[in-house]
């Protein structure tokens, strides 16, 4: 039965749900490698550029890239603590987002920073990427932690 929110003006509630069969295509390997404890990026040998998030095709020369394993060590390039978010992540608040500079990677990688004292986060701080043991097959299966 239609739920009525107001009569003047007439406002009704219309729920809407859907589910997509979403393919990660050629970047699937990033996610499937995580279960072996490997963090993979892609590299264009022609442009000498390594991408994470991975790209199957180099945007600079349109050659196909190859997979390379990376160490997952790096530093914080910039950070923010979130106290509000989209509906889906309200339950996680507050949390920290960081762009990290990773060893052997030429792009910055956006991820969460899991840290005990959020006030201690600093630009330039050393981090190490961690991999979830319970994969959700999403980019949130990896995150950064301080390297001690």
């Amino acid at each position: 039965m239609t739920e009525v929110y107001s009569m003047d003006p007439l406002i009704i509630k219309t729920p809407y749900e859907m589910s997509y069969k979403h393919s990660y295509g050629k970047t699937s390997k990033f996610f499937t490698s995580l279960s072996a404890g490997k963090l993979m990026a892609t590299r264009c040998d022609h442009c000498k550029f390594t991408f994470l998030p991975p790209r199957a095709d180099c945007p600079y020369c349109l050659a196909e890239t190859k997979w390379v394993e990376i160490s997952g060590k790096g530093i914080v390039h910039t950070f923010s603590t979130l106290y509000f978010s989209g509906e889906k992540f309200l339950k996680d608040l507050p949390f920290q987002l960081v762009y990290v500079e990773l060893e052997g990677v030429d792009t910055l990688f956006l991820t969460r920073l899991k840290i005990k004292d959020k006030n201690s986060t600093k630009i330039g701080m050393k981090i190490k990427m961690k991999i979830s043991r319970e994969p959700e097959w999403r980019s949130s299966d990896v995150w950064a932690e301080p390297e001690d």
Partner: protein
Amino acid sequence: MARKVAAVAGGLTYFSKARRDKTQEELAAEAARMALFDNDIDLGKDEIDGTIVSYFSDHFENQLLFGSIIQDYLGFNPKPSVRIEGGGATGGLAVRDAYAHVASGLLDVAMVIGFEKMSEVNTAKGNEFIALASDTDWDFPIGGFYSGYYALMARRHMEEFGTTEEQMAMVAVKNRNNAQHNKFAQTNPKMNPFGMKDGGKITVDDVLKSPYVAFPLKRLDICLMSDGAAVLILASEEKAKKITDTPIWITGTGAGTDAMRAGDRPRTLAGVPILPHENKQWYKKLEYPGVHSFRAGRESARQAYKMAGITNPLKQLDAIELHDAYTSSEIQTYEDLGLAKYGEGGKLVEDGVTAINGDLPVNPSGGLIGTMHAVGATGVMQAVEMFWQLQGVAGKFHGSDKTQVKNAERGLIHSHAGTGTYVTASIMER
């Protein structure tokens, strides 16, 4: 050779958190009626040759092909129409597309119809829809949220250049307080019957004490979410001169792009595209654009300045309406537009240069922070505002003379999407 193109009329609705009194198409009609009947023009509705329809999201209303509903509702069938979408830059890109339609001769008189109704879902869901305009494989799943993305960029700008939260707060105060003299503004409860009850003037202290949404951005650093519409009419030179005694010419336009994932953008040493008044030596140690600056904004300005013959924007422009989605992005945009050196944008607002009575007023309307961000309407609103400024009638439309920039002859409008993925800038002149 492209034909000369002028703006000849504009119209806006009152902007509000929720305009539940009207549907989207009824809001568009409200703005179209103002454009056709409240401007000093000799133009019948039937003389409009086609429309450019500007709206961002199909999700907010769960209705696809809304452009067709608008075209029908406003009575323009069977004339040509096209829908333009480019995230936050939707409105500016629609104005630019209408310019191209008229300049090319495809249309003699074009109406740009911008609108968005964001209130039919709750704010957190609305933010989630907006976040779907970020990379949904990589950036959204970790807790992606646009204020978070801009906060990361703002924090890096602070690191690179020493920009402060106080300087950001000054942008919020300027724009919010300008809006208190604009009757269309959502934060203006005195003049706007649909205005927010807790609107009104603010101080730097108010901004600094408002709660963090995403450090370093606080609630009052962040733009509004709005319902509303904006309509602009453009015409060819021949038509424009018949329609009005005071056409406002579009003399330059540019557009730029950058990677959806800001982390994928280059960090090239000395990579700044140099504007005519700049010296390459200034930036020889700067990695660019990184996540501190908007390369697409720089690129759009570079093209627009070249086309309009602008070699020193701070001196040659009299007013700017720019996309202040965040106070930090207004400061970043000052630099992209070449109003200040990279790194000195914060000082520009601190020195009062961009205040309503400063050398180059920025967002005299109140901008996205003070007046509205009904996404598809936003860039069109900026063009309407600049059109009224350059005609010298801003006070008449706003209901207060305090927003009119004295003797404004040339202005810039700037429309920006998702952390600088799409940006467009255009020059308008008397």
